[in-house]
């Protein structure tokens, strides 16, 4: 997408300069127009920072409160989305303990907690879609604390 835009811009500038060349000079002085090709630069440093910060955020059992360690990554993602808006999806998940439909609700509540944080930072809520998978899509298999910890999460996609 960025490349296409850059190409279009270049083409426009070239046609402009060609049009300039075709005019008949009225005196001996030829005005050289600036025909240097302009490039569009997207600031990717913010997105790099967001990607490096990770896009999975973890939660405690039966809780939907953001953890302190998620904050930096969420701030980076929020900045990236404000600088370069795009549609994202927040997928909420729960561990296998407890009932499936309650866990669906819990997964949604977690994804909503992430969404609210990002909206507070200034991200347009229209860009964020929330979906819960409850306990249907485990990240780690096994019925133990470490697997459950990995599964109580929200993934930003």
């Amino acid at each position: 997408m960025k490349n296409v835009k850059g190409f279009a811009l270049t083409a426009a500038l070239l046609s402009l300069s060609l049009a300039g060349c075709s005019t008949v000079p009225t005196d001996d002085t030829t005005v050289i127009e600036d025909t240097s090709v302009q490039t569009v630069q997207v600031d990717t440093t913010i997105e790099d920072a967001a990607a490096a910060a990770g896009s999975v955020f973890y939660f405690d059992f039966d809780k939907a409160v953001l953890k302190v360690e998620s904050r930096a990554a969420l701030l980076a993602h929020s900045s990236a989305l404000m600088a370069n808006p795009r549609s994202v999806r927040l997928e909420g998940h729960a561990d296998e303990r407890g009932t499936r439909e309650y866990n669906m609700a819990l997964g949604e509540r977690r994804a909503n907690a992430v969404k609210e944080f990002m909206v507070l930072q200034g991200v347009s809520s229209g860009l964020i879609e929330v979906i819960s998978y409850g306990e249907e899509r485990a990240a780690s298999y096994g019925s133990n604390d470490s697997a459950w910890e990995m599964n109580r999460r929200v993934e930003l996609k």
Partner: protein
Amino acid sequence: MLSWKKSLLLIVFLLASSSAWSELVIRVTQGNDKPTIIAVSPIALNGIQIDEDIGRIVEGDLKRSGLFAAIPRTDMLAFPATAEDVYFRDWRILGTEYLVVGSLIAIDDSRYQLDFSLLNVTGQKAVFEHSVRGTKVQMRDLAHLMSDKIYQEITGIRGAFSTRIAYVTANRVKGKFIYKLNVSDTDGAREKLMLESREPIMSPSWSPNGKDLAYVSFETGRPAIFRQNLVTAERQQLTNFSGLNGAPSWSPDGEKLALVLSKDGNPEIYMLDLASKRFTRLTRHFAIDTEPTWMPDGKHLLFTSDRGGTPQIYKLNVASKKVQRLTFRGNYNARASLAPDGRTLALVHRGTDVFHIASFDLITGRLIELTETRLDESPTVAPNGAMLIYATKQGDRGVLAAVSLDAGVRYVLPARSGDVREPAWSPFLR
């Protein structure tokens, strides 16, 4: 990854499928302390070729109830087919209390009649004689009807062997999920595939006439509620809201579904009138409200809510929308399933640190843990109230298990492969 185009979707006509093998294998792990000793003599076939061993099916049904122990065929001195052929003394020395004899005869080219008798060995008399008729593909139906009749005569409780269970299986094949919605007999036989998808399938709920299932499918990339007819495979998407579309529960009159929508920002209980397609919001609270289930009067719903801080069971008056908390013991009580007596609830209860199925008496408020496994969920009570089936884990695999409502009888229905979960016991079908 979530596009509906990519989700493999396959609906199978229940009647068209003919696979007789089953994914479920049943093992009784605990029976009643003093089971009734019954002998089921092999059914005389009178030259008729059938694929099923009717006597074995009846024996299996009765044993699975936990209330019966069966005399093995190898111990039997004779295989009588009618009451006249019975020498009571032969059976008394084996300790037999009741004896079942039967015979299959052809009525015409396609129909057969199964005549059977229940005999009281101690009293040396016939208790009843009965006949059931059907075609060759209905031999299992005939056997289960026979079990129903015998069970009811001896226990006084209506038999539920002719009912079905719906359940979801999930398999991971090369990193990809395959979800299946299946229906089988309660002994696991005659499993039929209703729906197959790469996206989650959840929360099957029977219509009260046993002809339709409502369930949640993610095939569109997000959860939506569908209904599907078992016989015609006719299928209809009922909801398409943003957020949760979950936990459908069919009303006792069959005209409405209670369900969960979070389109207002958080999960609320709604009622969908199936004829008018009108939705009525029933709860209004910022907490999680989910897992509605109807009470037999059709005027009240039970549901799970964490409005008090932890998930607990609440009762809702549909007309007044008034809500009353029912459970207080423990920090996790959810997913109520009501027994047909309208009084006993089966629910998911968190004990010290594990999740058990417990029964809860709505009148006395007594809560009793029924299961000893952990990670137990999705209890569903048989329409006769004798047993409940639930989902649990064996190792890392999801399996179905059953327990009687007095916790005296248990059995496991392990799948041959993959995870089995979310059982739903059908209503009486005839």
